[in-house]
């Protein structure tokens, strides 16, 4: 290990240092200047983003640079996700602004926890050993529990934190038990060593049990059925910007880990675990979409829709081919931006702490806020996978990957369920454009406008000129795909 190795860790170091500084500022007398916290946080995100971009030059020409005894690696795959995480956290910061100033809770600690969560997510994307991945996951999870309960005088928020905490810690204990079994069978925590050990091994019960427990823990993080029960309650109870974070950033990080662990470590036993994951994916799509139809609360509806999207993305892991991995990357990006845009509109419609909740609040929105209503339609079409929005490109990759891998029935379930999902997405569109009504008042601040505009741009650009993002995704996933092709 040299100083050059430490440089590869620079984005994480900056995020961790910045988070610690944000934490001590109020103690040093910054409490009164709460409005400064947002700018400090945005500056931190900008520096972190520069460091992430800078770290790509350090590894130019090399596919992957494992450092710290092969526990941490920088490669194109991790850079793709790290940049996505930084953008998500920056947008969540913008979403939080008005929300925090209204409720008079401390801002510095809030942003500090978000920065710690970012640090954990970046470790998850870069971890090539199960130890690093677990520590990153826990850093993200512990920050999320506190953030979900940040409105400590609201019963709903505290209750959401409690439910998230109990189910979250149990799921990480289950994941940990799986890791310990895998370690016992393979003799190592490093993903590449595990893969090498498995390639000369016959399927055995302890190993399959370990892989299943690990998958169960990760399925909790991405909210796939049957590990989804926490999702609707937490999304409704948590502060709205945190629900936006949990449904985008936290899920994207879990998918980065899911993809890396399964594509690098477990390709040898693909036949054994793919059927179990296929059942989980099918259940997530069916239960998520059917439950979303009956919801009248928009946040609850989004929670069930996010459960179904976890099912679609799982297709990419089940398929275990080039197309599948690219599909995961592009779909994660598309889903994150469409979702952030929708959460921005919900925040715009707030009355007090909790609003923009019922479908009635959206009535006649196109008269009061034409831009918001139009972009909302684009985001909903993108989530439904209708061309020419970005969602179509993402779903095309995932469904084609499933067909290529011989999971045609799963692709059919996915297509049918996408059609079902349009039913409840369009209900919002009908409310906004065809129904008359005063609905909720709108406060459209510049930062919400910016989040909407950026999400709209990404959704449309990926939809209309997909060549550029697709080329980027192919580049970002080439290293991991190389391993699968070698198999």
């Amino acid at each position, binding site marked *: 290990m040299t100083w050059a190795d430490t440089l590869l860790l620079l984005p994480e170091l900056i995020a961790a240092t910045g988070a610690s500084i944000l934490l001590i500022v109020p103690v040093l007398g910054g409490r009164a200047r709460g409005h400064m916290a947002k700018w400090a946080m945005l500056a931190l995100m900008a520096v972190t983003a520069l460091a992430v971009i800078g770290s790509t030059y350090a590894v130019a020409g090399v596919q992957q640079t494992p450092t710290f005894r092969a526990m941490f690696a920088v490669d194109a795959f991790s850079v793709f996700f790290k940049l996505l995480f930084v953008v998500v956290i920056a947008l969540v910061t913008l979403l939080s602004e008005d929300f925090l100033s209204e409720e008079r809770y401390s801002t510095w600690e809030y942003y500090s926890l978000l920065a710690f969560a970012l640090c954990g997510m970046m470790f998850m994307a870069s971890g090539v050993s199960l130890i690093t991945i*677990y520590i990153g996951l826990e850093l993200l999870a*512990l920050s999320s529990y506190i953030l979900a309960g940040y409105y400590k005088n609201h019963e709903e928020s505290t209750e959401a934190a409690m439910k998230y905490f109990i189910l979250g810690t149990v799921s990480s204990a289950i994941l*940990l*038990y799986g890791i310990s079994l895998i370690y*016992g069978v393979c003799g190592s*925590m490093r993903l590449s060593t595990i893969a090498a050990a498995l390639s000369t091994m016959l399927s055995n019960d302890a190993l399959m049990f370990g892989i299943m427990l690990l998958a169960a823990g990760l399925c909790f993080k991405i909210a796939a059925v049957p590990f989804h029960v926490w999702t609707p*309650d937490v999304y409704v109870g948590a502060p709205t910007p945190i629900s936006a974070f949990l449904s985008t950033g936290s899920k994207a990080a879990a998918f980065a880990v899911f993809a890396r662990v399964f594509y690098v470590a477990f390709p040898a036993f693909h036949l054994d675990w793919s059927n179990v994951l296929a059942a989980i994916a099918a259940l997530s799509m069916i239960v998520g979409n059917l439950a979303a139809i009956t919801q009248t609360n928009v946040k609850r509806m989004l929670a069930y829709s996010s459960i179904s999207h976890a099912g679609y993305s799982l297709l990419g892991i089940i398929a275990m081919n080039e197309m599948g991995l690219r599909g995961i990357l592009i779909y994660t990006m598309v889903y994150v931006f469409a979702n952030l845009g929708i959460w921005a509109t919900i925040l715009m419609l707030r009355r007090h702490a909790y609003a923009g909740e019922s479908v009635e609040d959206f009535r006649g929105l196109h008269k009061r806020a034409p831009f918001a209503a139009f972009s909302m339609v684009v985001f909903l079409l993108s989530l439904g996978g209708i061309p020419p929005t970005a969602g179509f490109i993402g779903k095309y990759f995932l469904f084609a990957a499933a067909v290529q891998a011989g999971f045609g029935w799963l692709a059919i379930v996915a297509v049918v369920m996408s059609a079902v999902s349009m039913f409840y997405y369009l209900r919002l569109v009908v409310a906004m454009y065809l129904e008359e009504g005063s609905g909720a008042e709108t406060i459209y601040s510049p930062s919400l406008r910016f989040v909407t505009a950026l999400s709209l741009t990404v959704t449309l650009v990926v939809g209309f000129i997909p060549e550029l993002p697709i080329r980027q995704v192919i580049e970002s996933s080439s290293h991991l795909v190389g391993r699968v092709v070698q198999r």
Partner: protein
Amino acid sequence: MPSTSDFLMLSATLFTVGLIGVILRRNMITVLMCIELMLNAVNINLVTFSHMLGSLEGQIFTIFVITVAAGEAAVGLAIIIQLYRLKSSINVDDARNLNG
């Protein structure tokens, strides 16, 4: 001298007891203790495998797990205290504002 499989059986038993406790018990403090039990069951597993394989990785991971468990206990107790302030109860069933 107990064998490796005895330790693994002990770990599996403790883990199951913890999991059943989380599902059945209604008191938040007891639930938290059951979660700690599950994490410590994993620690026994890791140390046993570490001994069996002659590799240190498992024991190093155990130290990380103990640290994380301490952090989890701190966050969990903070949430329990806040819940008690709002509802004067730490029974899981009394928290039912969000009908999931």
